[in-house]
């Protein structure tokens, strides 16, 4: 999808900085974003009287999606970007908005599909299998896609995303192809416990990959295929193969967008059962930090975020991925380790430098 965004009542410096940053982060966004003088998505500086007036008016009229830009979210704005503009915060905010927009759009499409055509599902591509004989392909049944329940933008619900479709496919042991408009294509073979797709650079996912991984179920086109067809396809296209666990992990990290998985209470005490197998599960240094803490401590996610100094939405994405990998234990008692060694600033400094050194040579 292509989204347009404008800015209003920003200082000259912030305005220039925002435009530049928007260009710089394109590769890390799930969708294409461009700056326009007028758009339905607007970044407004609510620390200025005119900016706050704009935000209030737009919120009342609901004609625009306004991102409140300020040091503190004093207005309790649903969409908020803290000052000063930082790369990760902006990426997360724009990806979350894109997910919201596509979720709303997906919900409308889903509703229309189930009302108007109960016996078919949206299939935007006629034949995904190209030169593979048609008799090996079969459109999926509508019952494969959950359609009636409204899609939540507050919680992450796997059953309404690509993740749920893949989990269902694995459970039913069906070989399938998944794609979405302008998105990547992946082939899942539950039998082999592998997925086949173009090369994944775990540190830099392409927009096509992000778009598919973050898709809501209604946007995804699924096609059944045989194992033979899959092998032909993988060979013909020179596809790479990955463990299914790797894909489930990646898809969850991309799709949850800082939303806690539905059914998990934010104040429940949680800990990690075991170290995630980072040999097959792509990880960032921040994930190792969270894992090390959550293995030793059973506590709320808010406490984990405070203690590890990892922002909450990143923590939630990691938590959801661990939950999908069945690595989370919920407990009734809080248990925060008190056996910690006193902080040594020299050691902290050394560790930080080692991490920096290792990261800089990746």
């Amino acid at each position, binding site marked *: 999808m292509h989204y347009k965004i404008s800015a209003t009542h920003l200082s000259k410096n912030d305005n220039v900085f925002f435009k530049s940053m928007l260009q710089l982060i394109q590769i890390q966004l799930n969708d294409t974003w461009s700056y326009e003088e007028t758009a339905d998505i607007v970044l407004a500086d609510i620390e200025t009287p005119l900016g706050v007036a704009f935000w209030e008016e737009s919120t009342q009229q609901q004609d625009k999606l306004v991102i409140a830009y300020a040091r503190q979210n004093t207005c309790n704005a649903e969409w908020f970007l803290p000052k000063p503009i930082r790369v990760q915060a902006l990426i997360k905010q724009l990806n979350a908005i894109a997910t919201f927009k596509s979720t709303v759009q997906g919900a409308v499409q889903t509703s229309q599909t189930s009302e108007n055509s109960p016996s078919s599902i949206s299939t935007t591509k006629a034949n995904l299998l190209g030169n593979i004989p048609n008799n090996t392909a079969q459109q999926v049944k509508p019952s494969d896609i959950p359609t009636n329940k409204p899609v939540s933008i507050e919680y992450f619900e796997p059953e309404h995303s690509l993740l749920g479709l893949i989990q269902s496919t694995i459970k039913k042991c069906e070989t399938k192809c998944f794609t979405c408009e302008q998105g990547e294509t992946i082939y899942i073979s539950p039998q082999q416990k592998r997925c086949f797709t173009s090369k994944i650079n775990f540190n830099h996912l392409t927009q096509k990959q992000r778009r598919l991984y973050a898709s809501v179920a209604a946007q995804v086109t699924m096609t059944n295929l045989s194992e033979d067809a899959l092998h032909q396809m993988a060979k013909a296209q020179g596809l790479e193969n990955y463990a299914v666990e790797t894909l489930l992990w990646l898809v969850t990290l991309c799709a949850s967008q800082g939303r806690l998985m539905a059914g998990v209470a934010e104040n429940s005490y949680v800990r990690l059962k075991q170290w995630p197998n980072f040999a097959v599960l792509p990880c960032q240094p921040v994930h190792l930090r969270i894992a090390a803490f959550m293995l030793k401590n059973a506590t709320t996610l808010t406490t984990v975020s405070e203690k590890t100094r990892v922002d909450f939405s990143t923590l939630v994405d990691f938590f959801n991925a661990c939950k999908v990998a069945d690595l989370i234990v919920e407990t009734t008692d809080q248990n925060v380790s008190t056996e910690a060694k006193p902080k040594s600033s020299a*050691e902290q400094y050394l560790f930080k430098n080692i991490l920096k050194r290792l990261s800089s040579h990746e």
Partner: protein
Amino acid sequence: MDKIIFTGPMGAGKTTAIASISEIPPIATEVRCSDEEGQARKETTTVAMDYGYFTLDDSVRVHLYGTPGQERFNYMWTILTQGGIGLVLLLDNARPTPVEDMAFYLDAFREFIETTGVVIGVTRMDVNNQFSLDDYRDKLFELGHIYPLFEVDARQAEDVKILIHALLAILQANME
């Protein structure tokens, strides 16, 4: 002296792991294997230690020491661990009893691990998959430990970096 210790049985990939992240070709004290197992597995083995290093921004060197794999050189283990930051335990999944190897090394380095930390990397799972990571986890659980455990390829710098990242993460968590 800031140093990270690599240990594990013969052939687990300690020398290779050090080579993959060291700035210099590792200084090794390798000799031809004299025992039957060694001759069957590899031509040479480390008898004293392997050594490499990488340099930080402030010119501080982090030294990488590999212990000799064979138990008969275990007098070197205590010497090498003195003042170490933490332990990287590499295990060869193609050996006859790698899970028992893990228990042995965790016990042999118990004191050092208790005062620092350990991370475990299992190598050669592609060569022999007789034991899965779950088998190692079960053993760790039986021993009352939850240590970071990964399948790694010692030849891949990225895999070795993950081990060190994880080691530092648990050391930092211990200091929270």
